[in-house]
């Protein structure tokens, strides 16, 4: 308990220090938001396993370490070859690059974009697009329940801003690359996507760690989709082995809009994603999916909440995990269907492939249905690779390890194949294969 208090106090002291130095440079509307977020963080502190939402995810190792914002860290040079290797899309995709949480203009290429579409660092947006940012930043979510979102709001300085005015559409996906290079760093990227009526875009958040030492990324993404807007959001997480990765994604959807999220998790020591999708207008569509492929002592926690507050919306959740070694997965899928939300169509599936006896899974659906004319289904499954399938493949000449890899890829295919953007699909497929190859090599060595 003492340790928890100390760490919290350190963050509070850090905040006061940054304010004194004027490093936070808040526009006037942001200061009260920061203060109230900080006050909530000060009151609540970091959650413990006594909190229902954190029962299976122990933050003690995160809380025990001291992380500091990348203030004094000089802009790290990234080799062009490194950037090349880490790019998901083709050249020509608009791309913002962040190093240790700070925007790196010299590595970024924010264009070309259709007329009217704004893509910039959040810091720049706060001055240039101040009113749009002010209208939406930290305004949509029920942030009070999420300490990590509060921490982000209190310290919000850097991140990405995308604004799509009505009827604009960015045909090329927009890539946000977050590179961690320095141990001990606290990176708090804040991403705000404001999609006007009938606009469309695809956004890729790509997290990469170039160090296997401990660091902490606390990312918050807010998506606001106007009527008829369509947004596809991807997260590719390849953090370093010692990383703590906490992500909060909140999507607020107006009528007839569509939002999809696909989160692929490979890296990090402790991962927690809190995703909330809130339908604020009729006939909205949400498709949420996740693939996590982890081993060793990795921990992956997905807390998904879909809030059907209005009628005739549909939501799909498909989360699949491949667990090896002593990895642990937590999935909590909450679907709320409020009394007015008739004709809701919600479904949720969570499946795990267990590749070793040492893994642990806590998967829980949480359906809270207060309307009667609705269709809500959920399912969960976990299992090992079928021995009959392994033998079938071996009987055709494939080595045991090859057979297992093929079957594991088969398990993941359902997620990979639903990715409509070919370069993203190909990148994920390549990462997945490399990951399974590496895991196999480690197994063969031991």
């Amino acid at each position, binding site marked *: 308990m003492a340790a928890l208090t100390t760490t919290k106090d350190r963050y509070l002291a850090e905040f006061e220090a940054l304010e004194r130095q004027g490093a936070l440079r808040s526009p006037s509307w942001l200061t009260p938001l920061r203060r109230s977020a900080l006050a909530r963080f000060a009151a609540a502190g970091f959650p413990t396993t006594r909190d229902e939402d954190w029962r299976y995810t122990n933050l003690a190792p995160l809380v025990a370490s001291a992380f500091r914002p990348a203030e004094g860290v000089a802009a790290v040079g990234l080799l062009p070859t490194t950037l090349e290797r880490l790019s998901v899309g083709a050249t020509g995709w608009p791309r913002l690059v962040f190093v240790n949480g700070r925007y790196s203009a010299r590595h970024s290429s924010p264009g070309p974009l259709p007329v009217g579409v704004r893509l910039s660092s959040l810091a720049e947006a706060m001055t240039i697009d101040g009113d749009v940012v002010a209208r939406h930043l930290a305004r949509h979510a029920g942030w009070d329940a999420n300490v990590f979102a509060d921490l982000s709001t209190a310290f919000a300085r850097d991140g990405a801003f995308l604004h799509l005015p009505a009827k604009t559409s960015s045909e090329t996906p927009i890539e946000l690359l977050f590179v961690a290079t320095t141990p001990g760093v606290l990176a708090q990227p804040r991403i705000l996507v404001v999609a006007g009526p009938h606009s469309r875009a695809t956004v890729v958040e790509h997290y990469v760690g170039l160090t296997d030492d401990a660091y902490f990324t606390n990312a918050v993404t807010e998506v606001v989709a106007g009527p008829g807007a369509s947004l596809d959001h991807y997260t590719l997480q390849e953090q370093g082995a010692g990383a703590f990765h906490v992500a909060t994604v909140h999507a607020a959807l107006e009528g007839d809009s569509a939002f999809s999220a696909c989160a692929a998790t490979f890296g990090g020591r402790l991962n927690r994603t809190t995703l909330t999708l809130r339908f604020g207008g009729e006939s909205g569509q949400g498709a949420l999916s996740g693939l996590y492929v982890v081993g060793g002592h990795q921990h992956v926690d997905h807390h998904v909440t879909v809030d059907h507050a209005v009628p005739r919306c549909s939501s799909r959740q498909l989360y699949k995990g491949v667990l090896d070694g002593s990895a642990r997965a937590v999935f909590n899928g909450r679907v709320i269907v409020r009394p007015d939300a008739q004709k809701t169509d919600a479904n949720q599936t969570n499946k795990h492939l267990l590749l070793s006896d040492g893994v642990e899974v806590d998967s829980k659906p949480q359906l809270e249905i207060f309307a009667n004319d609705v269709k809500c289904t959920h399912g969960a499954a976990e299992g090992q690779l079928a021995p009959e399938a392994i*033998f079938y493949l*071996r*009987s055709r*000449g*494939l080595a045991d390890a090859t057979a297992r890899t*093929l*079957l594991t890829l*088969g398990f993941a295919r359902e997620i990979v194949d639903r990715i409509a953007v070919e370069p993203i699909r190909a990148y994920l497929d390549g990462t997945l294969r490399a990951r399974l190859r590496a895991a196999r090599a480690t197994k063969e060595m031991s």
Partner: protein
Amino acid sequence: MLSIRDLSAGVEGKTILRRVNLEVRAGEVHAVMGPNGSGKSTLAQVLAGHPAYTVTGGQVRYLGQDLLAMPAEERARAGVFLAFQYPVEIAGVSNASFLNAAVNELRARQGHPELDAMEFLGLVDERLKLVEMDRSFLSRPVNEGFSGGEKKRNEILQMAVLEPKFAILDETDSGLDIDALKVVAQGVNRLRRPDNAIILVTHYQRILQYIEPDHVHVLFDGRIVKSAGKELALELERKGYDWIREEVAATQPTGA
């Protein structure tokens, strides 16, 4: 080519095969018949190297090698192929990528370069024709949602692509309609060469009209109790297995 000597095997402590003896020479087709549960599939699976079955006695020589000492994949690479009685469904793995992985694995072991996408498709297209299968089956997950007959055809497609030296077809004829049976049988015949051999497990003599066996064996309660020419299949079709049962009872009055 294949020499089975006193082979005994079982599963989970239960004895299924009891001292099976069988000699298969290059170029031959052997039919193995016998009542349900007599051990035909067990024999097939043991020869293919299924790890669930325990060999408790005897030995199997295959092209001068100790077959039973080889893991399943080694046997396949040495040219052994089993067409499964119940082909396994594999979610998320397309027929094409499965065949591709298998072909290239074999080629790698034989010191041949991998086939590129064009060469592979060329090969598969040709073999699809042999079993009159549509190309659309390539993009579907292996056996998933295939009808019974389609699964059997898919087994023969794999056989046609992998070109084994020694194939065991475990009731490949069951579940095939009359036309499909002809197609599959013709496919198998086209794959026959003087230097390969086939064991054909079947309940019906119909397929033996198309793929003529050199020898017909009856497996009964884990033993080969009768071996003869192709006329034995006709006799079994006419008379059933009761007379075999009686013969066995007569020669082994003390029972098993």
